[in-house]
């Protein structure tokens, strides 16, 4: 419940905001004031492993690992929810067991789907 009688509880948030804005502003201005200013062509060019850039970087390329990342997500989320359940297994009892089985079933559907769609093959 929002406490109207204690607005001072919001002072830390206000201070935090002030520090966040202040830090950014101060470091940018101070840097601008004291750094030497000497731009030339090579310095302004984008750095690409020391090799001169050959073409525009904005093009489509295949990100193979995104499928792996998505599969990882499935199991990662599963574990995140399995741990608390395992810790509190006794108290949750049968309810927790059934609930977890349903949860795992839904994740399994996603896994089987990915498997059948050949997401686990590299080529």
């Amino acid at each position: 419940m929002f406490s109207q009688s204690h607005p001072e509880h919001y002072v830390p948030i206000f201070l935090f905001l002030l520090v966040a804005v202040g830090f950014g502003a101060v470091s940018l201005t101070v840097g601008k004031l004291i750094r030497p200013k000497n731009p030339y062509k090579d310095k302004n060019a984008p750095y690409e492993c020391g090799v001169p850039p050959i073409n525009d970087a904005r093009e489509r390329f295949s990100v193979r690992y995104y499928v792996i990342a998505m599969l990882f997500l499935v199991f990662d989320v599963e574990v995140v929810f399995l741990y608390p359940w395992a810790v509190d297994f006794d108290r949750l009892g049968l309810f927790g067991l059934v609930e977890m089985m349903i949860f795992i079933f839904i994740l399994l559907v996603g896994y089987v789907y990915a498997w059948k769609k050949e997401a686990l093959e590299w080529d």
Partner: protein
Amino acid sequence: MSFSAVNILGTMPEIYLTFFGCILLILETMIPKEKRSWLAYFTIIALVFAMVASIGLNGKGLPLYSGLYIVDPFSNFFKIIIYIAAIITILFSLPYLDQEDIHLGEYYAFILFSVVGMMVMVSAGDLITLFLGIELMSLCFYVLVGLKRDDNRSVEASFKYFLLGSFTAAIFLFGISFLYGAAGTETISGLAGFISNPGTLKPMVMVGMILTLVGFTFKVSAVPFHMWTPDVYEGAPTVVTGFMATAGKIAAFAVFLRVFWVAFSGNRHDWDILIILVSILSMAVGNIVAIMQTNLKRMLAYSSIGHAGYALMALLLPNRESLFALLFYVFTYMFMTVGAFGVILMMRKKGVEGEEIEDFVGLSKRHPIAALVMLIFMFSLAGIPPFGGFLAKFYIFFAVVHAGYTWLAVVGIIFAAIGAYYYLKVVMAMYMKEPNGSVVFHSSLMGRIALALTAGTTVILGVYPAPFVAYIKSSLALFIP
């Protein structure tokens, strides 16, 4: 936390459909490409199952999961409309998906999951449950809109919808956080108690109310949050457009009504001016801009913005008459809109759809039945008797007059008259001009069944509405004083 058979039983339709959706995903990987149409039959069976379950639960009026979920005649009415819209969509989609080369099994699973999202929306008794339902529905729609992956318009529509939709979701959630911060609860009935007497926290409640209003008006595509509608409706595959324009919008209307009539009933005089403004703007933009459209899908998108304006007028005064008018309106709107999109997707020219108004020129000479069906939908959308659309508008305007806003009803009637022009333009193109194009009307048995169902219901709703009126009267919700 414990098992409660009542909770499980009450949400049985949702559980069915989620389960069927999962099964569909697995089945899709197993059956060969030629037999994909079996998935469509399977989906229809799943929806019929759920419909039977929902009808069985009717009249219970249960708050489930300690008030997070409400199963009452009101939500069941909307669920049944959503099932019918989904079934008709799937009937339309069978030859269409093959013709467009997007016949993926995931399509059916996404339709089922979005139906579950809408069911959660219309049954939500809590703003967080409501938000989950909206997100589940929207996520499925983002994917369905971009189903034509090789078509630039479709991908653009999907991306645009996704960006704007997620912005609006954030705004909506921000509104909920204000309401929660003020009231300390986010159940709709709990909010109602607080908002009738907010004391010094009134500004917070107002901010929360306005932000949630933004979320709802986006979902029902009312002006000024309508910008996405024409592009998305045009770019999406036409079956998906029909489904979004009916089921998605109707579900949004249901939650709009529940939240504003229950939670915000205490400060009605703070929001009625906003609703009036949004409603007039929607009718104006929807009906006037539609006149200039040459693409029929775009025209129907603007028409759906205008229809959102008419339906919003019924939200002004919480009473049984307005509720009945709105329920009758969305019921009629569903049949005529999904049917009109169905006719468009059956018009084929050289591998693409005939979605321009030009393509309908002289249709009555080449395919009189298709032209007649389109005429029914256009007349009904324009509100010309004796079709369902006329009665729907009639009930709405009557409820508005009885609510004491006679001038608003007059404004609505003027815009309805303006709107009649562009619907009649399509009819004129079909009946008064000589055919010239190479567009053919290509229908399958299932498509013809769906057209007969939608056109037939549109006519019966206008000629002999008594059984529908009786049914809708029986599902007026319990929460009306």
